[in-house]
C-alpha cells in the first residue's frame, strides 16, 4: 500500500525505488521530460502495433490475408496510410464551424495520450506522476475524449455526424457510471487510488479476484472507446463514418490515431487494473505490459470480428439496467469481503467464490433483463396536421 504523501509530493510523487540508481530523482523536471517523451513514444508505437495487429488479425478472422504490401508482411501499413493521409487535401465543409472543426481532432486525440501519465510502464513508480488520486485523474481524462467527438459532430454540419455526436454523449453519460463503479470494486480491494498502488496490491490479479468487475469494466470500456458491439458512433452501415464523416487528410488521421490511442489507453488501463500491469516473471516488465495489452485488445477485436452492434437504446438499456446494478452489487460484495475476510494467503479462496457469485448474478440478470422490442409510437406528419 502506498504511504500517505505530503502535499508537495502529490504534484510529482516520485517513487525512486523502482527506478535505476542513477535516476535523477531529485530533479522533477528532468523526470517529467523523460517520461513525457517515453510515454508518448510508447503510446504512439503501440498505436501502430495495434493498427497492424488489428488489421491483420481481423483479416485472418475473415479468411483474408490483410495488408501485406507495405514493408515485410505489411508492418509499415500504418506509416503508408499516414503518409497518404498527410498528402491528402484537407476538405472543410462550407457550412462547417471552422474553428471547432479544426480543434475537434486535437481535443479527441490528446486525452488518449494524457492517460499514460498515470500508468506505470516498466516497474514500481516508473510513471510520469504517481498521483494518489490516479484513478480519478484517469476517469476525468478518459471521459474528455467525447468532447472532441461532440465538437466534430457539431461542427461538421452534417446530420450523420450530428446523430453520431449525440449518440456519443449519451453513451458516455450512461457508461461512465458502471465504469467507475466497476473500478470501485478494485479500489476497495487495493485500498488506494494510485495506479502504482493498485499494481502493487495485485499479488492475485484483480481479474480473478473481481471477475464481475473485470467483465463490467471491459464492456463499459468498449463502450467508452466505441468498439464493437458498442461502436454506435462509427456505425458505418447506419451513419456512414459518424462524427468524422466530413474529415479528411491529417484531421482524419488524427481521429484515426485517437481511436486507436483510446484503445491503447483502455487496454493499458485494463491491464494495470485487472491483470497486474507490468508484473510478471522472466520477461522484462514493459514486455509484460505490452503482452497484457495485446491480450485485452485481442479480445476486443475478436468480438469486433464476430459481433453485430446493438441499437442505441439497447446500449443504454444494457448500461443502465444490467451493468450499473451489477456493478453496484459488486462494490457491496467487495466491501463486505474486504471487511470480514482476513487478508493474506486465504485471499485465494475468494477467487472461486467471486467467480461463482459473478456467474450467478449474470445468470439472474440474463433471465430478467430483456433488450428486445423498442418500437416507438409516432405520429406522422399527416396525422400531426389533422
Amino acid at each position, binding site marked *: 500500500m502506498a504511504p500517505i504523501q505530503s502535499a508537495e509530493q502529490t504534484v510529482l510523487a516520485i517513487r525512486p525505488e523502482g527506478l535505476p540508481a542513477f535516476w535523477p530523482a531529485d530533479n522533477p523536471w528532468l523526470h517529467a521530460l523523460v517520461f513525457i517523451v517515453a510515454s508518448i513514444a510508447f503510446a504512439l508505437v503501440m498505436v501502430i502495433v495495434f493498427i497492424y495487429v488489428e488489421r491483420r488479425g481481423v483479416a485472418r478472422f475473415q479468411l483474408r490475408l490483410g495488408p501485406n504490401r507495405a514493408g515485410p508482411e505489411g508492418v509499415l501499413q500504418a506509416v503508408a496510410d499516414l503518409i497518404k493521409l498527410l498528402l491528402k487535401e484537407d476538405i472543410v465543409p462550407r457550412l462547417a464551424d471552422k474553428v471547432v472543426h479544426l480543434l475537434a481532432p486535437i481535443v479527441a486525440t490528446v486525452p488518449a495520450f494524457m492517460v499514460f501519465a498515470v500508468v506505470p510502464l516498466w516497474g514500481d513508480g516508473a510513471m510520469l506522476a504517481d498521483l494518489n488520486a490516479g484513478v480519478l485523474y484517469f476517469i476525468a481524462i478518459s471521459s474528455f475524449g467525447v468532447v472532441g467527438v461532440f465538437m466534430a459532430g457539431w461542427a461538421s454540419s452534417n446530420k450523420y455526424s450530428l446523430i453520431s455526436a449525440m449518440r456519443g454523449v449519451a453513451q458516455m453519460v450512461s457508461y461512465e457510471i458502471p465504469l467507475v463503479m466497476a473500478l470501485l470494486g478494485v479500489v476497495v480491494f487495493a485500498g488506494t487510488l494510485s495506479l502504482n498502488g493498485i499494481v502493487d496490491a495485485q499479488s492475485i490479479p484483480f481479474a480473478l479476484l473481481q471477475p464481475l468487475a473485470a467483465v463490467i469494466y471491459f464492456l463499459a470500456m468498449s463502450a467508452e472507446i466505441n468498439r464493437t458491439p458498442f461502436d454506435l458512433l462509427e456505425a458505418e452501415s447506419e451513419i456512414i463514418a459518424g462524427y468524422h464523416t466530413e474529415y479528411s487528410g491529417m484531421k482524419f488521421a488524427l481521429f484515426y490515431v485517437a481511436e486507436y490511442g483510446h484503445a491503447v489507453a483502455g487496454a493499458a488501463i485494463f491491464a494495470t487494473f485487472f491483470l497486474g500491469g507490468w508484473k510478471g516473471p522472466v520477461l522484462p516488465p514493459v514486455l509484460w505490459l505490452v503482452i497484457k495489452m495485446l491480450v485485452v485488445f485481442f479480445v476486443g477485436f475478436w468480438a469486433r470480428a464476430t459481433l*453485430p452492434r446493438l441499437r442505441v437504446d439497447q446500449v443504454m438499456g444494457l448500461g443502465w439496467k444490467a451493468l450499473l446494478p451489477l456493478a453496484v452489487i459488486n462494490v457491496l460484495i467487495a466491501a463486505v469481503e474486504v471487511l470480514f475476510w482476513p487478508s493474506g494467503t486465504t485471499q485465494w479462496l475468494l477467487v472461486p467464490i467471486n467467480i461463482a457469485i459473478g456467474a450467478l448474478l449474470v445468470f439472474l440478470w440474463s433471465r430478467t433483463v430483456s433488450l*428486445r422490442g423498442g418500437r416507438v409510437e409516432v405520429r*406522422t*406528419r399527416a396525422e400531426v396536421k389533422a
Partner: protein
Amino acid sequence: MEATETRTEPFVINLGPHHPSTHGVFRMRVTFDGEVVVDVEPMFGYLHRGIEKLAEGRTYTQIIPLTDRLDYLASMTNNWGYVMAVEKLAGVPVPERAEYLRVIVGEMMRISSHLLATGFLINELGAFFTPLMYMYREREKILDLFDMLCGQRLTYNYMRVGGVSHDPPPEFWPAVKRFVREMPGYIDEYEGLVTTNEIVLARTKDVGVLSKELAINASASGPFLRATGVDWDLRRDDTYSIYDRFKFDIPVGTNGDVFDRYMCRIQEMRQCCRIIEQALQQIPRGEFRARLPHLVRPPAGEVYGHIEAPRGELGFYLVSDNSIAPYRFHVRPSTMINLTTLRDLTIGWKLADLIVIFGSIDVVLGEIDR
C-alpha cells in the same frame, strides 16, 4: 420562472443514393424525430437503363443477356424466367436434361443469392464483415462452378430458348456433389455465428413485423412473404419446370419479423441442397438444347411467365406480334413490389432498425430500376 416546453423538431435525411447500406443506389427520404423514423419515402430510378424499352428492339435471344442485368445477384433465375416465358409463348419443348440442368443451376443461384442476402443483413446489423466473408466463401464456390459452366461469374447468359447453352464439363459433377455435401455443414456454421447470437436476436426479433393480411394485399413475394406465415411458393403452388418431381419443404415463418425472414432464407438454403441432391440423382443423359431456328419467332399473342426467383416472384410479361422481337416486354420486379410496405414496417423504429428492415427485404437495384 416560467416552465418551457421542450419541443423536438423532425429533420429529414436523404439516406442514399450513396450510402453504405442501401444495396446500390437506393434512396430513402427519411423524416426523423431524434433517431425515430417518422416517415419514409423510397425513391429509386438511379440505375434505370430502360431495359424494357431496349428489349423491344432486340431479338428474343439478344434479350437474354439483358435479363442478366436485372437482378444481378441471381442472373440464372432471370434467364430462366425469361426463357420460360418465351418457350410458353412459342410453344417450344425443352429437353429433359436441360430442365434438370436448369433446376440445378437455379437452386445453386438461390443459395448464392440467399447467402448474400443474409450476409449483408448481418453486416447491416453491424458485424464487421466476418459473417459476410464466410458467406462469400461459399458463394465463390458456386460462382466458380458457374464460371466452369458458362464462362462468366455474374452475367451468365446460360439459358437459351429451348434449353441451355452448354452441357457441363465432366469435372462439373464431382464439384457440385462435393458442394452439396458440404453446404449443410457451412449453414450450421453460419447459424452458430448468427442465429443464437443474443445481439442478433435483440436486434431482429419482433422488429419490422409484417402482418399476413398486409403482405398478401401488398403483393409481397418470396421469403419476405413466407416469413409472415403465408405458405405460398410458386415452385409448389404453380409448379413450373420439373419441380413436381422433387421432395422439398417450404419454410414458413410465424411472426413476419426480420428474424423470420433471415430464418426462412437459411432454411430455404437447406432445402435447395435437398433439391440439387435429388436432381443430381435423377438427371438423364441426352440433348440439352432443342433444335430451333436461329431466330425465334413466336406466334402473335401474349404470355405472363413467372418463377420463384430468390427474391420473390419474378414475372415476364411478353407480347408478341409474330416478329423476331417482342412487341412489349415487361418485368415484374419482385423486390420493387416488396418495397411497397417499407413505410409501414419502419415507422416508429430507429435509424439502425430502418437499415436492418430495409436489408431484410433484400433488394437488388438492378431489378428495381431496370
